[in-house]
């Protein structure tokens, strides 16, 4: 198994003890050595103390998903090992803090009762009898190598050398785990040193300390001969191409900046907040040098570049309505939230739809319903996004499948919003938001900026001089009326959530009502016609597909990896990723699916996409593969499930349940 899947590394510990930072150094290291990486985070809705872990897979070829098992487990607390010991691959390594061998299962309050019982049962010992040594022994019986590292010795040495207090230094357990792992993998120490520097920027003292700790960890691992005992190694690869490591939150945030979004509102919520924090940290915006030079000649003020206003609002109702207000003024505006916040935005969404305001909402799905599992994954909001709001109004819903698409689709979201003058919901999920991946490049100009039809001061003057009134909601062939920004000279207009006439004044006239309703709704038709097939869906045809996988959003990662895996076995499968969920690409999809055997893959309970497909095309999948335990789909479980559909052993509905 390990060969096909590359290398997997897992670091775990209590929330607040630097798991993510450690993982980031590890990722930077293996990436700098020339490997492609994929990394995913699992954590509790908690600030400190609960178990959190970070999983990293890396390989010589591009990868985009995780497997359930690891080659190395890097731990500095006991809980991590109690939880993950049985996920080890046959010849895996477990790095642990030698001091913890006596810790008993009963001493770990953060392990759920159910899990405690399960572990206790598995080892046939009461929790207060079951200690870490026993766990490790058992693992070793299965071929795992358990490598004790003396964390205290390392930190004591550092404390002596630097004068830092030992208690302040315990935060560096993470880097011991990381460095020990890299030492096991025989990675050039210099690569790690550089990764540390990169991670900590200009915090010199921190870099020094981390480097020192790492050196001692390398020494310990090497001197104890662990690296020899462990049969995997990471030679530095020759590789000159520039690469980036990004997660979905970041890709969307950078996409928003690129798209020209200049007003972002948010109310803090996991897993959406990171996007807004990122924007806040980049609120002062630079313009491309060549352009900024160009513009300077015309407009003096632009010399000073621009900025994005990022507003922390009092709630999500204010977030969507404030963003809508900014959009009316002419700014590309957006907000970002997850389920609970989106639930509060519904009325505002309807108003934007009714008033044809281009506003973009990034909706990061997480485990639902209600507060649900705030830090876990799910794709449970699809139908809700499509139908949110009383009455009927047009909206576009799109769902990128990976980090690259997240970037490009963000720009498209604003284009659609402005071109068709409607709210656009850009759906991601916690998995895509929080998982990092190596990407080769971002082509900033692959997607052009399209602001739709906007009348400016001078055009309005002409209209005025021609004795014509500007009509914000003028009836037109394609449903789209030229837009004017609030504050533009030579015009005024009105908006109202009530049904209105072309000027925007309230009307209850049944005839105008019908026309206005038809005008609004027809924009979806216009969009359907204009948006090219390749933006609506990705189709990865195979010559002789055994089955067609249909899915959406972040499942793309494991599915693409699966396709490669199956190809290695000589099995071909098709893959259709629906990217625009509303207006639904019914004809396109019917064309592709009719007569095929297909399996629907989704991270939710009800197989919502399959429902949409059937509603719109009449077609029904032969198989469903769903998952809703809050953990993303792993490559290995998907492999098994899809293979069963190919061999027709599968029941109609398979529920995936892997993940810790």
């Amino acid at each position: 198994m390990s060969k096909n899947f590359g290398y997997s590394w897992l670091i775990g510990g209590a929330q607040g003890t630097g798991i993510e930072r450690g993982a980031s150094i590890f990722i930077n290291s293996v990436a700098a050595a020339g490997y492609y990486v994929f990394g995913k985070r699992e954590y509790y809705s908690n600030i400190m103390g609960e178990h959190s872990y970070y999983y990293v897979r890396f390989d010589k070829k591009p990868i985009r998903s995780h497997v359930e098992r690891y080659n190395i487990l890097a731990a500095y607390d006991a809980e991590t090992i109690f939880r993950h010991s049985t996920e080890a691959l046959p010849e895996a390594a477990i790095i642990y803090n030698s001091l913890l061998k006596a810790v008993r299962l009963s001493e770990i309050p953060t392990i759920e009762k159910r899990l405690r019982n399960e572990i206790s049962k598995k080892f046939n010992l009461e929790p207060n009898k079951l200690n870490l040594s026993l766990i490790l022994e058992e693992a070793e019986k299965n071929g795992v190598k358990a490598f004790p590292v003396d964390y205290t010795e390392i930190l004591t040495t550092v404390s002596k050398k630097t004068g830092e207090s030992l208690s302040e230094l315990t935060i560096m357990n993470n880097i011991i785990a990381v460095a020990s792992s890299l030492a096991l993998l025989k990675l050039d120490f210099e690569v790690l040193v550089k990764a540390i520097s990169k991670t900590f920027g200009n915090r010199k003292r921190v870099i020094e300390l981390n480097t020192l700790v790492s050196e001692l960890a390398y020494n310990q691992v090497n001197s104890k001969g662990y690296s020899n005992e462990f049969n995997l190694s990471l030679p530095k690869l020759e590789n000159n191409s520039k690469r980036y490591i990004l997660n979905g939150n970041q890709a969307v945030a950078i996409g928003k900046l690129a798209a020209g979004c200049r007003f972002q509102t948010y109310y803090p919520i996991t897993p959406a907040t990171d996007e807004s924090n990122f924007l806040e940290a980049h609120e002062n915006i630079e313009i491309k040098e060549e352009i900024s030079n160009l513009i300077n000649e015309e407009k003096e003020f632009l010399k000073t570049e621009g900025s994005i206003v990022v507003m922390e609002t009092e709630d999500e109702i204010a977030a969507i309505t404030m963003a809508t207000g900014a959009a009316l003024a002419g700014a590309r505006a957006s907000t970002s939230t997850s389920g609970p916040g989106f639930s509060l935005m519904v009325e505002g969404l309807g108003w934007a739809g009714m008033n044809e305001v281009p506003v973009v909402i990034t909706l990061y799905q997480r485990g639902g319903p209600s507060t649900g599992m705030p830090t876990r994954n799910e794709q449970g909001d699809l139908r809700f996004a499509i139908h949110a709001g009383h009455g009927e109004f047009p909206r576009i819903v799109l769902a990128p499948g990976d980090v690259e698409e997240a970037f490009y689709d963000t720009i498209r979201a604003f284009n659609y919003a402005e071109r068709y003058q409607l709210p656009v919901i850009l759906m991601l999920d916690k998995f895509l938001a929080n998982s990092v991946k190596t990407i080769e490049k971002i082509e900033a100009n692959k997607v052009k900026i399209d602001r739709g039809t906007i009348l400016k001061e001078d055009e309005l003057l002409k209209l005025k001089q021609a004795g014509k009134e500007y009509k914000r909601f003028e009836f037109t062939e394609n449903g789209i009326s030229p837009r004017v920004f609030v504050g533009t000279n030579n015009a005024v207009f009105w908006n109202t959530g009530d049904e209105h006439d072309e000027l925007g004044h309230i009307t209850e006239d049944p005839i105008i009502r019908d026309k206005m309703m038809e005008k609004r709704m027809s924009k979806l038709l216009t969009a359907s016609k204009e948006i090219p097939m390749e933006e609506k869906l990705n189709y990865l045809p195979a010559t002789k597909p055994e089955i067609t996988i249909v899915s959406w959003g972040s499942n793309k990662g494991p599915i693409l990896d699966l396709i490669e895996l199956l190809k290695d076995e000589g099995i071909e499968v098709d893959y259709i990723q629906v990217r625009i969920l509303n207006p639904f690409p019914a004809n396109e999809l019917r064309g592709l699916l009719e007569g095929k055997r297909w399996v629907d893959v989704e991270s939710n309970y009800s197989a919502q996409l399959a429902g949409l497909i059937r509603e719109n095309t009449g077609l029904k999948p032969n198989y469903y593969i769903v998952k809703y335990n809050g953990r993303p789909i792993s490559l290995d479980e998907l492999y098994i499930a899809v293979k069963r559909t190919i061999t027709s052993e599968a029941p109609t509905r398979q529920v995936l349940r892997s993940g810790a």
Partner: protein
Amino acid sequence: MELKLKLTDYRTDVHNNWCPGCGDFGILSSIQQALFEMQLNPSKVAIISGIGCSAKTPHYINGYGIHTLHGRAIPYATGLKLANPELEVIVTVGDGDGLGIGAGHFVHAGRRNVDFTVVLYNNEVYGLTKGQAAPTLNIGVKTKSLPKPNINQAINPILLAFAAGYTFIARGYAYEVKHLKELIKQAISHKGSAFVEVIQPCPTYNDIHTKEYWSGKGNIDPKTGKEVPRYYKLEETGYECIITDETTEEEYLNKITNFIKKAYESGNRVPIGVFYRDLRFATYEERLSSRMPTYKISPPAKQEIADKKGNLITNIDKILEEFAI
């Protein structure tokens, strides 16, 4: 070019369907007159309302008119104003709208001090939904469409605005149009969030605080034996409450104390006029400028984001560098 704008330039020809005698007419005309006297360019004015009788105001004013959702006028206005600070933004809300469903936004706007004006139409009832008690109706009062007397205590809008942090607080009366117009002009001129509560008779549903009531029906001055209005003008009493950076702690507490007394006055002597002015706080726009030096000259709505060919002009390469290996 001396193109003086006329009062009619601030009106629309939309049929006004408020009830005859509604106090809203007075407020509308105060706003129109204020805009006219300030000679504001209608294309630079935005009137933003929520939902209710009061919320129909924008349709009657020639200016960008944004009739939004019940309770949400303030955040819409905040977004609009912050995206284009050159706009003159006036928020017109009902008492149910602004202090019932919209109470949260009302409080939070006070914390920001965005440079706009909030006019609260206080008729003590939910007009458009047929006369339910608004949060400004006193406990124990039974207006005609209530089946039983109101069992909620009333919000004091002046006090709440103060607790929330509005830096200009005033009260007007819908039928004192000139006075109200002046208040609105002052509110517009004020740098920061200005709040103007307007006592607004609703002849259809509020049979307690009617126009006649306010004019003094039954309120006999023992000296003159004549009916006297139930409101008086603060400025005529010499009252003033201005807080500046120079105000000492002690002065401050004295001023606040006086303010609180005025805020509590009720019954037959209800003050109208300017209650409070606080000049210590920067506007939200200024606060943003302190973080983003280009904000004022190049606010969100005014920035170029693409070149003529549609190529984006934001320099994201530098940001991507943070993620490069």
